[in-house]
C-alpha cells in the first residue's frame, strides 16, 4: 500500500508499470482524475487546499478500510494539492486483486471516500472570479452504498 500527497505532478503510466504485479494478481483497476474546464472554457486554474496534518492519516484510513473489505494485493493513492491548470492530473487510485470485482469495487469505494472524507478543498479561478467548489449531495449519497 502506498499513499502520496504532493504538490508536483505524477505519471500514472510509470505508477502502473509494476503496480500489483505478482503471481496472485489477475486484475488491476486505475482511476485518474483530471482538472476539467467548464463548458465556457473560462477556467484559468484550480487551487487545491488541504489539511496536511490530517490528509495522510485520512487517506491511510480510507485505504486500510478498502483492504479490510476486499481481497486486495495492492493499493495506491496519490493526491495533489496547490495550483493546477485545466488538463492537469489531480489524483489517482489503483487497486490490484485476484478477481476483477474486488479491484473495481475497492477503486470506486476509494474514490467515493476521497471525494467526501479526505480533507481537500477545491477553488476554481475563472475569468469571472474565484469560487470554492461546493460539495455535491450525490457525492455524499454515494457513501451510503458501502
Amino acid at each position: 500500500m502506498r499513499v502520496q500527497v504532493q504538490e508536483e505532478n505524477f505519471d500514472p503510466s510509470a505508477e502502473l508499470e509494476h503496480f500489483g504485479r505478482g503471481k496472485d494478481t489477475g486484475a488491476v483497476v486505475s482511476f485518474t482524475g483530471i482538472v476539467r474546464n467548464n463548458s465556457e472554457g473560462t477556467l484559468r486554474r484550480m487551487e487545491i487546499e488541504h489539511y496536511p496534518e490530517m490528509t495522510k492519516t485520512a487517506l491511510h484510513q480510507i485505504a486500510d478500510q478498502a483492504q479490510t473489505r476486499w481481497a486486495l494485493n495492492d493499493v495506491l493513492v496519490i493526491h495533489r494539492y496547490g495550483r493546477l491548470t485545466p488538463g492537469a492530473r489531480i489524483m489517482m487510485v489503483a487497486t490490484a486483486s485476484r478477481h476483477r470485482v474486488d479491484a473495481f469495487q475497492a477503486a470506486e469505494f476509494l474514490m467515493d471516500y476521497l471525494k467526501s472524507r479526505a480533507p481537500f478543498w477545491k477553488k476554481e479561478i475563472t475569468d469571472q472570479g474565484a469560487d470554492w467548489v461546493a460539495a455535491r449531495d450525490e457525492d455524499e449519497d454515494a457513501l451510503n452504498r458501502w
Partner: protein
Amino acid sequence: MDVLYFAWVRERIGLPREKVETDAGTVSELVEELRAREERYAAAFADLSALRVALDQELADFDAPLANVREVAFFPPMTGG
C-alpha cells in the same frame, strides 16, 4: 488549543490558525464563543450545517467533548478526488 480554519472558513475569518484559550466543554460551546467575538466569526459560523469539524485530525460532531483535544479544525464539506 490550536484552532484551524480551511477554505472559505479561513477566508471569512481571515487567518489559517490561531491559539484559543477556552473552557468550552464541547465543539458547539467553542463555536458560540467564537461567534460572539467579531462579525467575521459570526459570518463564518452562521450556518453550522455548511461546516465540518475535526478534533485532533479526526472528523467529529459538533456536540463532541473538547477534553484533552489539542487541535480543532473547522472547514466546509470536503471536495477531494
